[in-house]
């Protein structure tokens, strides 16, 4: 009885949590597909006119492309610079690692407005384009996730032993890094990448203050349209979330799926061929002739 009761409570909690999370999405979706919804439980009609309007608005497509390009460029910069840096620091400079662990938390302490003001004062009118300054600012903002994410992955796989083991087997540092470390931290990297991807894509304050005037990203566009029409704003929200979801799925697929699935399939096939590995010949002598 007690067990059943516990299950009931667990499932109820899960259902309530699920509803709490999904309800805003459903209602936003319903609002985005209607023209009138005031004193009824469900909307009075159903239409795609807001999505059509959105699709026909060249500013929406442009904003979308700007957001995607800004996010991907920043992500590329972050990954290319941070992954080798964190690996080097973690593996070879433990003292610097201790220092950086604290330092990378600093962006949490600096509100985006302060960061943007500081960057504007420093770079406004300088030769450095504001786009590059924005990429740099977003880079700094991603440090806590990126540093800790990669570092935890390295710790999780025992990267130091793996590197040493590869080097003793004759590999140089680059070979060890590319053939042993990177493939093994791929999952951790993917999760971290998705985290900061969503963060970059939805970033508003820094983008708006630094280059918002002449570079309308999707979030700035959303804010502008929200004040015009509630239904349209909901359509923008739905489009935004759908897009984020699709891009996340795409990143997941590109960085992990193919190779892992192929390997798993090959492994499963072999397991079937040699029988269950649950029957290891543990006590069979190594040198049994």
């Amino acid at each position: 009885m007690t067990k059943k009761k516990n299950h009931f409570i667990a499932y109820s909690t899960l259902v309530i949590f699920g509803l709490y999370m999904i309800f805003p999405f459903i209602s936003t979706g319903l609002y985005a597909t209607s023209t009138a919804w005031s004193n009824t439980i469900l909307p009075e009609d159903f239409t795609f006119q807001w999505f059509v309007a959105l699709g026909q608005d060249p500013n929406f497509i442009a904003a979308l492309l700007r957001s995607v390009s800004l996010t991907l460029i920043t992500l590329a910069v972050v990954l290319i610079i941070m992954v080798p840096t964190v690996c080097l620091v973690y593996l070879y400079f433990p003292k610097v690692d201790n220092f950086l662990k604290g330092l990378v938390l600093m962006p949490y302490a600096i509100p985006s407005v302060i960061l943007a003001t500081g960057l504007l004062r420093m770079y406004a009118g300088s030769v450095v384009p504001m786009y590059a300054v924005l990429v740099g600012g977003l880079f700094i903002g991603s440090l806590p996730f990126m540093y800790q994410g990669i570092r935890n992955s390295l710790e999780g796989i025992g990267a130091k032993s793996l590197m040493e083991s590869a080097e003793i087997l004759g590999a140089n540092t680059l070979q060890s890094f590319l053939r042993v470390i990177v493939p093994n931290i791929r999952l951790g990297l993917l999760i971290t990448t998705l985290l900061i991807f969503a963060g970059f894509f939805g970033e508003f304050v820094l983008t708006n203050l630094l280059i918002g005037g002449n570079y309308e990203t999707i979030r700035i566009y959303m804010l502008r349209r929200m004040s015009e029409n509630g239904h349209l704003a909901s359509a923008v929200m739905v489009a935004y979330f759908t897009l984020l979801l699709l891009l996340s799925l795409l990143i997941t697929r590109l960085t992990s799926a193919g190779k892992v699935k192929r390997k798993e399939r090959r492994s499963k096939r072999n397991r079937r061929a040699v029988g269950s590995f649950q029957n290891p010949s543990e006590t069979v002598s190594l040198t049994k002739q």
Partner: protein
Amino acid sequence: MSYISIDHLSLSYGNNLVLKDISLAVEKGELVTLLGPSGCGKSTLLRVFAGLEVFQKGDISIDGEIVNDVAPKDRNIGMVFQSYALFPNMTVFDNVAFGLTIKKVSKKEIEEKVMNVLELVNLADKKDFYIHQLSGGQQQRISLARSLVTEPKFLLLDEPLSALDAKIRKQLQMDIRALQKKLGITMIFVTHDQEEAMILSDRIFVMNEGKIVQDALPAELYEKPKNEFVAGFIGNYNILTRQQKQRLAPTFSAEKLAEKYALRAELIKLTPAENTETIDAFFENYTILGSTIRCYFNSGGIPLTVDVLNSTVDVTTLQNQTQLFIDYRSFVPLQS
């Protein structure tokens, strides 16, 4: 000239001197053990052989060549780690083949060599498995295979069996020894387990606080520990002060006077034997260890541990034991 030698080597981390003026030599085909408690510097010394630690003083030479500044990848050695350090992203075959692919050996030769070494460790049927699909013992055997396949000059083993359960550990101890003898490969084995060291080694280097305190054959080490630390670490010795020894054996005078003496627990007898002298003692307690029984006696305030074969004693009669019998020559003087 020895095959591998270390000459007056010192290593420190900042102000912390970890290895203190170490000198040792290993001959070709030998299996030597670095034995000592945690933190004694044995793993650090092993890493020095591998080129993974930077030392400040001394020389290390392999096969007649000083290799102080040679990178690990160029030393042509093998190493088996306590944590196995196998590559989770690769199959068993790819793990073992890794060293050969780095050396750009032909595919055909890689296939042949990898399968040979997998046969050697009896895991050829697991070649396409991933590491997480293997048990701890199997993983360590793959690690051994991966180290052997490149035909290294010698093999370093850093507490390779300590994460395994007792049964598999014992089996692998025998297997490693048999493999070493079969291939004639030089091995340096690190362990904190004195029994493991005794089973495996041709020679044992006992380490404490960054120094080698004794270098001896296993039997010699057991019979003649050099000092109190070795006696305490190697076996179940009774450590007696000079005064205590004098009280137990007043007529015995050792060749060299020492402040402390070791007396092996199994050399104290419950019944008279040849050349034994009698001492009065009363029985306090006993513990059954399996094939032996460890008895605790007290002789005039001196606690004595006595090991007897389980089959030779009836524990119910131990209460009646009032005398013990010692051959005075069993006392081993210890250096201070």
